[in-house]
């Protein structure tokens, strides 16, 4: 069933919307959660929570034309939240690794909160990504949106791991420079 029909089911409060969503996007959503959590059971829990949240949000939201990305955002957020909650360090390992990488190009907490709103940061990131070559942009998002491992990205793009690390390092550096240019002291 295509996205529009699924959204219509949500709008008409037809519970088969959830079944159809799971059939169309369940696997991909689970993959996102699994990449973050590295735990099959937890990924499945996040997937179920995503359907529940989608049920509550649509309506009023009508993510026509971007249903997968919409659901992807929900599950990504839920999985990150789960990481924050989880006491077991092993579950946090992937996430910690990524936040440490990201910390390289970000200011201290007080700086950002005082100078830039999240919305503004989002705009800067958008501009930054828009100016990147397609492959580099995809590498960045595979790492920081989809939470793929360096090795997985290497496989996907046919790069050695060192090259993936190098691309990401250069992009973080460029992002840092961009933030500085926007008046942000890193």
């Amino acid at each position, binding site marked *: 069933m295509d996205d529009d029909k699924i959204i219509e089911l949500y709008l008409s409060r037809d519970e088969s919307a959830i079944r159809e969503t799971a059939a169309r996007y369940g*696997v*991909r959503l*689970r*993959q996102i959660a*699994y990449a973050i959590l*590295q*735990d*099959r*059971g937890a990924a499945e829990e996040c997937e179920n929570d995503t359907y529940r949240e989608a049920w509550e949000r649509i309506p009023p939201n009508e993510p026509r034309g*971007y249903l*997968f*990305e*919409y659901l*992807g*955002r929900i599950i*990504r*957020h839920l999985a*990150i939240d789960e990481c*924050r909650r989880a006491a077991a360090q092993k579950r946090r390992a992937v*996430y910690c690794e*990524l*936040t*440490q990488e*990201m*910390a390289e190009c*970000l200011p201290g*907490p007080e700086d*950002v*909160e005082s100078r*830039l709103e*999240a919305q503004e*940061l*989002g705009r800067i*990131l*958008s501009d930054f*990504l828009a100016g990147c070559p*397609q*492959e580099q*942009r*995809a590498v*960045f*998002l*595979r790492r*920081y*949106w*989809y939470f793929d*491992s360096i*090795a*997985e990205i*290497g*496989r*996907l*793009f*046919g790069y*050695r791991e060192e090259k993936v690390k190098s691309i990401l390092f250069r992009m973080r550096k460029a992002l840092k420079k961009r933030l500085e240019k926007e008046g942000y002291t890193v």
Partner: protein
Amino acid sequence: MKSDDFLDDIVGGAEEKWIREAGNIDGNEIKRKRRIRTWSRAAAAAACLGLIVFAAFRLPGGREPAGNGSGAVSSETAGSEAVSSEPVSEPESPAQSSALPKVQASDLLENYTANPVEKKEPDDAFIRAGYDWAVRLFQETYRQEPSQKTLLVSPLSVVTALTMTANGAGGNTLQEMEQVLGSGSLPLADLNAYLHTYLKSLPSSERAKFSFANGIWFNDREGFTVEEPFLQQNADYFDAAIRKTAFNDAAVREINQWIDQHTDGMIPELLKELNDGDRMVLVNALAFDAEWWAPFSEERESLLPFTGLNGETVETPAMGSTEYWYLEDDTCIGFEKSYIGDTYRFVALLPKDEEDFAGFIDSLTGEKLAALRNSAAQEMTLVTLPKFSYDYAVSLPEVLKTMGLRDAFDAARADFSGISRSEQLFISAVLHKTHIDLDSAGTRAAAVTAVMVNLGGYYGDMHEVCLDRPFIYMIVDTAAGLPVFIGTVTGFSE
């Protein structure tokens, strides 16, 4: 703002178009374009398969080409072998790949840069046709398999190679190809678009890897010309590597090398020779290499008494696990078992009638198989599965003729004027070779094993599927649900 907030809120809020772009990255295309081989054969892989569909063209009256019958294929017979411990080669780095002898032929790929073409997402029509095609190819191959009846075919590989060929067909030859390949419902234009989209959509990750490659070699013999639209069409839809070369021993080595590379070393050689009459070789290669998501328990490894089609019982190494997708209809029981990430699943079907395996295969239809998979119930199932490993090679012309593809193999009737107008061509051989190696290996077992333990309390309600007699298995993708591979295990040797 903390870095994890940035990661969550700001990166998480990246524009949809870029999320989609990154999500739809086609690794196969990128890698193929770079001509870099990145795969390695993981020692921990639980299953690895490779296969080739090969279609060789020759002139009427020419000698039988290398590809006729099984002559050109290493003549491994269907797998009556028990588990074989194939030596695992060291992972090959791109640098090592580039150290391979360079291709000798003129590489024409640059002249045929793929143009953007219509995409057609897999829908009910494609899935229905895909199931029909898979079941009919499997049934007919089984019927014509003379002895052991243990086989493995890839419907996807065969349909891809033949659709590439059909792009040069005309008249009744084309009509028959559309009828057979599209199961009577998909014209060639749709097949091109569906396959183009579907092949690119099949996921590949570090631990559940899938790749495909298409290649066309044609003879640089004077007077033989190939129609440009045919080559362009196959470059556009199938990203085929196109090469013009003298059909000599060097070309045989080159094609075998390409096959070896694109099957990740699992099929090191297909061609023995090329003859004067051969004009074109079309190849599709697929490779699949994935780890189980929930590995088999070492504690449940055993020797399983397997009663083969010939009635003989042989003890064979087997493994056990608890699975969560149970299948049943009036004719069979079975289960589905996920590979890492659940992008692909192994599906096993055991007929209820222990005496009539052939009858069970005859009774299958695409619709029935699709319905069976759709009815999969999330119920705990105790599974016992023999380890197996085999190579399989089959010459498909008779199978395809029985399915209705007749003119293409008839030197007098074939119309491949879309390939060349300088000479009258027909298909002289379609070779299909596969390899599977299935065992218990896997990594990252702890987390998933824990899930199994947690659910142990339901033991009393479990189904049980013990594959101790002939069974059918498939590797399916979980998005469209289509069988990428389908095969049988019918017996083991002492």
